[in-house]
Each structure stands twice: as C-alpha cells, then as structure tokens.
C-alpha cells in the first residue's frame, strides 16, 4: 500500500507513528546506550555454574505437515514456496524434535535475580509466517515485532497473566516493541488476518531457557548448582518434566521424549 494513497488525516499520524517507532528502535538497537537493568538480589557465581544440555525427540509417526491456504492473500506467496505447509511440527529423520521450549520451571533459589536484557528479541513476520515460531524472553525484555510483508498483519498477543493486546502493522516496515511484565509460559501470538500464523513466547524471570534446534539439541548454561524441575513444552505435543540435579561446574545431560499421545 502506498503511503500517498492514505487519507489526509491518517497520513501525519502514520508518519508520526513510524518516526516514534523508528526512534524507539534506534534507541533499543544500540546496546551501549542502555545498560541491562541491574538485578537487586544475588548473582550466579559463574565459577561454579553448571549447565543442562540434551535433546528432544519424538517417537512414533509424526503428523503430516498441514498445508496452508496462503492464496487468500497473494502478497503472502511472493517469494515463498509454492505449496507452503505449517511449521508447527518439525521432526527430523531420526525423530529430532525442533521448536520445543525447554526451561527451568522450579527449584531456582528465589534470592537470585538477573539482569534484564535491553537488547530486543526480533519477531519477524515474513512470508506470512512468524520467525522464530518459538522463543523465550525475560520479563521486561523488549520484543521487536516487525512486518516484513507487503500486506497488513495484526499482532494479537493472547496473554492470560500479562495484558492481552491487539495491534496493527498495516504495511511493510511497520514495527512495534512489546514488553511483558510478568512470567508466562507460553504466550501465543496470532495474526487474525492470516489465521495460520502463530508464534509462542516463554516469558521467564530468569535466563534459563532454550529452544530445541533442528537436530533436537538444546543447552541451558550458567545455572547455579542445585536441583531443578525442567520442563519441555511443545505446542502440539504438550509438556514433559524432569528433575535434574547439577553439581558445581557440571553439565547434566537430559533428554525429553514426546509421543503423539502426549497432551
């Protein structure tokens, strides 16, 4: 949509909004300008910190990819694959499960506190799909949501603990920065214009989370020694939980197995 085609009253508002968003982004994109928000409690001693590493697998026959009817908006097909399918379930040949959100659910000493990163995590809308589909942020960390498509998107955050929101990004280049104020696993992002679009964010008060990669592996570093409940969440297959004990400088291996019957 061309900006010059917009009504007279709307044009200055859009220009002003773009300027404000751009200024905000420039400010946020320079990490040197804003140091991370300092934590008040005790910090993790990196000399003794350990890690959890492992992999997520799927056992059984993976559901076939769901076709996406992108033809409802021709702008979505520009540069995209001719027969797009949903990326909700990504299983490798040996059962490696991508896009499982793995995080420390419980067991962390509450006297610890963590700096809030000021560097935004970018959530792109490209080819009428979210990228990344699954990600994590800390409470207070900005999320920069960008419209890379030559079409309109609405950004609908279906938060339950946090405030639900629904904002418009009517044209390519529009962006908004959103910050969650409370922990919530998971918050779904949805575009109601293109109803196949979905992304999920895990909002946590600490940095101990990871998303499984294409080979199913994940790693959570910098954990103080202790016993933790670690949960793996998948948008289609539900959750799996494990107790994990980490000694000083120890890396504990953990694996999670999902099945079609999981809920």
């Amino acid at each position, binding site marked *: 949509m061309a900006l010059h*085609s*917009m*009504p007279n009253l709307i044009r200055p508002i859009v220009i002003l909004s773009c300027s404000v968003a751009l200024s905000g982004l420039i400010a946020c994109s320079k990490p040197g300008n804003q140091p991370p928000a300092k934590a008040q409690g005790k910090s993790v001693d990196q000399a003794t910190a350990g890690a959890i590493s492992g992999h997520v697998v799927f056992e059984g026959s993976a559901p076939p990819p769901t076709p996406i009817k992108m033809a*409802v908006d021709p702008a979505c097909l520009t540069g995209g694959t001719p027969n797009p399918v949903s990326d909700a379930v990504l299983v490798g040949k040996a059962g490696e499960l991508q896009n499982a959100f793995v995080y420390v659910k419980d067991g962390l000493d509450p006297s610890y506190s963590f700096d809030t990163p000021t560097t935004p995590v970018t959530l792109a809308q490209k080819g009428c799909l979210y990228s990344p589909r699954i990600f994590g942020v800390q409470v207070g960390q900005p999320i920069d949501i960008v419209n890379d498509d030559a079409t309109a998107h609405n950004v609908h955050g279906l938060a339950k603990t946090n405030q639900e929101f629904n904002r*418009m990004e*009517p044209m390519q280049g529009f962006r908004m920065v959103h910050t969650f104020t409370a922990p919530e696993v998971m918050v779904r992002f949805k575009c*109601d214009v293109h109803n196949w679009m979905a992304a999920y964010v895990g909002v946590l008060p600490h940095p101990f989370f990871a998303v499984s990669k294409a080979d199913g592996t994940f790693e959570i570093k910098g954990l103080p020694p202790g016993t933790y409940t670690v949960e793996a969440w998948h948008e289609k297959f539900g959750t799996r939980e494990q107790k994990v004990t980490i000694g000083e400088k120890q890396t504990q291996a953990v694996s999670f197995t999902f099945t079609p019957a999981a809920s």
Partner: protein
Amino acid sequence: VSAQAASAAGASMLWLHRYAKVLACATLLLVAAGGMVTSTSAGLSVPDWPTTYGYPMFSFPLHQMVGGIFYEHGHRLIASTVGFLTIGLVVFLWMAEPRRWVRWLGVLALAAVVIQGVLGGLTVLFFLPPAISIAHAGLAQLFFCLTVSIALVTSPGWRNPALRPVDDGRLRRTVVILVSLVYVQILIGATMRHLGAGLAIPDFPLAFGHLIPPTWTPPIAIHFAHRTVALVVTIFVLVLALRILRSHRDHPELARVAWFLLFAVAMQVTLGAFVVLSGKQPIVNTLHVATGALVFATTVVLTLRAYRVRFA
C-alpha cells in the same frame, strides 16, 4: 383530487414496503456476514474501530481486504450500509406511514442498530469478551426481526387483508411460547458459539456415544442445552404447524408460513448436525446462523399474523 391523493399514498406505502423488504434482506446478509466473521475467527483481524487500519469506513482500499480483513471489514461495510438504510427507513416511515406505532417501530429499529454498532465496536476493542459478543449476536436477531416486522406490517396483505384474520386464542398463546423458545435457543447458540463450545460434544446425534453425556463441563452443558432445546423447538413446531394446517388451512397467510417454518426447522436441524460432523466448517456454520435467523423471523411473522385480529 382525494382519489389521486389516496392513489399517491398507496404508491408511497407500496414503495415503503419494498424498501423495508430490501432492508430485511440486507440485514439477513449482515447476520450471515457476522456469522462468517465468527466462523473464520476473523473478529480481531482489524484491531481498530470505528476506523479500519486507520482508514474511515468506506475508504479502506478494497485490494487490502484479504484474509480475515475480508470478513471483518466486509461485515463492517454491510453493517454501515444497513445503518444508513435504517435511517432512510425512519425518514420514509415519518413521511409516508400514517400509523404512529409503525413509525415508532422504525425508531426502535434505528436505536437497535446504533446500539448494535457500538456493541460490535466494543467487542473488537475489548478482544471479544463473550458477554458483549453474545449481546451483539442476540441483538442482531432482534434487529432482523424488527426489520421483518416492519416489512410485514407495511405490506398490502397486512393493511388490507383479503380474509377476516383468524381469531384463535390458543394459537396466539402457542406462538408466543414458540417465539420465546426460539429466541432462548438463539441465545444458547450464541453463548455456545462465543464460548467456543461448538464441538464440545464431538458426535451426533449421540453425545460421546450416549443419549446423555457421561461427563459434564460448562461447554458440554451449554452444547447439550442447545441440542435439547432444538429438540423441544422441533417438536413444538411440528405440533403447531400440524394444528395450523388442520384448523386454518383456508388461511394462506398462516398455512404458507407454517409450511415454511417446517422447511426452515428441518434445514436448521440438518445444518446443526453438519456443523458438528464437519468440524465447524465455516460456510456450514454460517448457514446455521442465518437459518436460525430465518426460523426466528418466521415465528415472529406467525405471531404477528396470529395477533392480526387485535390490530385496527
């Protein structure tokens, strides 16, 4: 001169009736468009209101009406058109309609459509809270019936009945119960729809393989209530229609409506079954909403005709 004046008044009334029929048809289209918005989960695809992505209502570029915006903005365009047609109806009524109560019926319709528009806006701005969405769905049906009622009472057949209207007290009592029952059923349906309970019982005609659901949750309860009241309405309609066709078959203004009601209810029950069996296919779902509106409007027409003898 008086004959000419009477002829002009008659022509005006005829045009008023035609205009009211156009409004009623546009309103049914609006109800269906609203059904498509819910059926495709497009209610929040346009986050702002009363503007659409910052544009005033009629200036949003048509080529940008894609995906969910097509349904949501399309619904808004039809709604705005219906709003303007209703303003036109009120003006027309005050110019041409001699009966005061009919003129005020038009004002009531205008008030209803304004409130309906505001409810539609509020439900978008507050992320579809069920209470507002259900009120929006419930008022839509009342507004539709107001437009149908105005079209009916401005018709030549109503103003100058060919036959002496039926005076049947039992019929009047029965149709009032039926019209109330159908509206309750519509509200239950709207509640089920806006609470996402349309597939809470996934099989049909049984419920989880039983006559009565073996487990109960609020969504199952509201879904089962919709099925139960549907059964009651169907039996009620069968009994009433048979009674009309037996006792008042010489009154086509009742008999024709009774036949149509039988047809509409049969359609509606079939569509209801297919909503479940198709997994809430949007077009089937929407046809169920629109046919529900037709059933309700038909019972309103039947009620008004049963009471025709009480009108001057």
